[in-house]
C-alpha cells in the first residue's frame, strides 16, 4: 500500500461575506497517494481551486480534517505553515505569477532564499531547475522578455526547485496556446514519471486530464465518487 500524501475527512469550506453565504466545498473525502498525478476537474465554481488552496494550506477549512504529508494543517500557526509550505509544496498558478523585476533565475531562486543554502548553491539549484524545464539559455531574461509558455516553465522551475513532495497546479495551461500547453503538460508528466512527484492539477481540459494518472470530479462543491463523472460531462 503506497504512502498517503493527502487525506481529507468531511472537508468543508464556507465563505461568509455580508449577506452571502457560499458553500464552496462540502464534506469532501479525498485520498491521494505518493506518485499519483491527479487531474481535478469540474465546472466553474465547483470548488476546485478552493480544494487546492486548502491542500496547500493557503486557506483554512471551515470544518473537517485535512492531513497533508502526515501533517494536520489545522494545528499549525501562520509562520509554521509558511515554512511547511516552503519545504513541501510547489504551487503553479494559471497566471504564472512571476515577480516582474526579477530575472528567470532570480525568480526560481526566491523560495531557496528561505533555506540555509549558500548563494552559490541556490544559483546552482535554480540553474538546474531551469535547465530541467528547458530554459537553460534564458536564465537572465526578465518575465516580460519571455513567452507565456516560457513564463509558465519558469514558474514550474520555481515550484520544483525546493524539491517538494507535492506539486499543486491550478489550471496551469489555462492561459497558454495549444503548443505551449502541450509542453507544460509533458513537463508535468515527466516530473511525475521520472522524478516521482505527486501532482494535483486542476483543469477544465479533458485533453490535459489525459496526462494525469487519475481524474477526480467536483460538482457543486461535492467530490464525486472515483470513476464517476458529472451527468452533463461530455
Amino acid at each position, binding site marked *: 500500500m503506497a504512502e498517503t500524501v493527502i487525506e481529507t475527512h468531511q472537508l468543508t469550506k464556507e465563505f461568509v461575506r455580508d449577506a452571502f453565504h457560499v458553500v464552496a466545498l462540502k464534506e469532501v473525502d479525498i485520498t491521494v497517494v505518493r506518485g499519483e498525478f491527479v487531474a481535478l476537474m469540474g465546472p466553474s465554481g465547483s470548488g476546485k481551486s478552493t480544494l487546492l488552496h486548502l491542500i496547500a494550506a493557503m486557506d483554512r477549512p471551515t470544518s473537517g480534517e485535512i492531513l497533508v504529508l502526515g501533517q494536520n494543517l489545522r494545528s499549525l500557526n501562520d509562520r509554521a505553515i509558511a515554512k511547511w509550505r516552503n519545504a513541501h509544496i510547489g504551487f503553479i498558478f494559471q497566471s504564472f*505569477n512571476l515577480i516582474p523585476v526579477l530575472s528567470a533565475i532570480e525568480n526560481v531562486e526566491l523560495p531557496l532564499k528561505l533555506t540555509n543554502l549558500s548563494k552559490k548553491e541556490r544559483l546552482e539549484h535554480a540553474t538546474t531547475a531551469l535547465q530541467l524545464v528547458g530554459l537553460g539559455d534564458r536564465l537572465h531574461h526578465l518575465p516580460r522578455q519571455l513567452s507565456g509558455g516560457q513564463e509558465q516553465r519558469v514558474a514550474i522551475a520555481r515550484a520544483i526547485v525546493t524539491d517538494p513532495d507535492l506539486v499543486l497546479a491550478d489550471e496551469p495551461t489555462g492561459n497558454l496556446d495549444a503548443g505551449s500547453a502541450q509542453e507544460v503538460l509533458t513537463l508535468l508528466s515527466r516530473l511525475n514519471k521520472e522524478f516521482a512527484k505527486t501532482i494535483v492539477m486542476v483543469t477544465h481540459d479533458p485533453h490535459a486530464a489525459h496526462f494525469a494518472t487519475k481524474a477526480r470530479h467536483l460538482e457543486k462543491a461535492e467530490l464525486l465518487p472515483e470513476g464517476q463523472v458529472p451527468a452533463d460531462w461530455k
Partner: protein
Amino acid sequence: MFRYFPFILKNTLRNRRRSILTISSIAVSLCILGVLMALYQAMFFGEPTPAQALRLITRHRVSLTQPIPISYREKIQRIPGVRGVMAWQWFGGVYKDRRDPNNFFPRFGAEPEFFFQVYPEFQIPDDEKQAFQHERTGAVISRTLADQMHFKLGDRITLVGDIFPVTLDLKLVGIFDEPSHAAILYFNRAYLRDALGANNPRQNEVGAFLIQAVNADDVPRIADTVDRQFDNSPFPTRTESEKAFQLSFAAFVGNLKLFIMAIFGAVTFTVLLVSGNTISMSVRERIREVGILKTLGFTPGAILSIILGESVFISIVGGALGCLLASGICGVMRKGPGGNFMAALRTLEISPAVAVLCIATALLIGLISSSLPAWSASRTSILDSLRSTG
C-alpha cells in the same frame, strides 16, 4: 534580512521616478532637520572654551539697551573670585553705506588696559596691543573683519552714532586673531566718553560689564552675588555666563529653542505623511506579489522585513543626501554675516553626532511611515493578496 537585500534594491529601482522623488523629499526634509540640529547644537550644546568659561556679563535686568552706572565697577571688583572687570558698550552707529550688509559688523567700546586680559584667546602682536592702549582713537578688529572689509593697519574708520549723538573717527591700530571667526571691532570707550562731552550724563553710564573670574567654578556664585548686590538699586542687574549671554542676545525675539523645535516637529510630521503615503501606495500596488511570496513560503515576518527594509533603505539614502546638503548649507552660513551677531554660527557644522542623529531620524521616519502598510500587507491573507489586481 540581508539575503533579501538584492530584492529590496530591485524593488526600489522598480519605479525609479517615484523612488527618486521620495528620496529627494526625504533628503530636503532631512537637510532642514540637519541644519536645525546643527544650529541647536552650536547654540545650546557648544562647550565654552576655557577662557570663555571664566567670563560673565552683567547688564541691566530689563534689557541690554538700558545702561547701568559705571560706578558698579568698583563694587563688582571687590567680590571675591573676580579677577578683572571691563566696561563694555554696544555702539551701533553707521559705517559708510547702510545698503551693504557687510557694513553692519558689530562694534563695541572696550577698555584697552583690560581688553586682552579678559580675552586671553585673542592673539595680537605686542606693538599693536600697545598702540591700542595708548592711542585714544585707536581701534582693533578681528582678522575675519579685516579680510572681509580689506582693512589695513592705519586705515581710518568713521562711525556715525545713532544711539549716541557722536561721530567716532577711529584709526585701525591692531588686528587680532580669535577662534570664533567673528567679524568685530573694538574701540576705546574713553574716546566715546570724551566725545559725549563733560556735561552729558551718559558719560557715567555703560551698557554692560565683562567680568573675568579667577576660577570657572566660581562663575555661578559671582553672578549671584553681583545681582543680589544691586537688587534694590534703581539699576538692578542680570549677570550670566558669556555663553548664556550670547544666546539671550541672539534670542531676544521670542523663544528660539521652542521655535527650532516647532519647525523640527512640523518638518518631521510632514515628511512622515508624505513618505507614509508613497509607501502605502507602492505596497498596495504590489500586494499581489506579497501573495506570491507567501505562497512560496515567505513568513509574515519576512514580508514585514522586506517592506520595512525597502522603506528604510530609501530613507537612509535620503537622509545621507540630506546630511551632505545640510553640511554644505552650514558651511555657507558659517561664513555669512549672521555670525557677526551670533558667534555660535561660526561653529555651525554637521558634527558626527548630528550626522548620526540625522540618519537615525531618517531611519525612524522610514520605519514609522512603512510600519502600517507593511504590517497590513503581512497580515493580508494569501488568497486576498493574490486576488488583488492592484
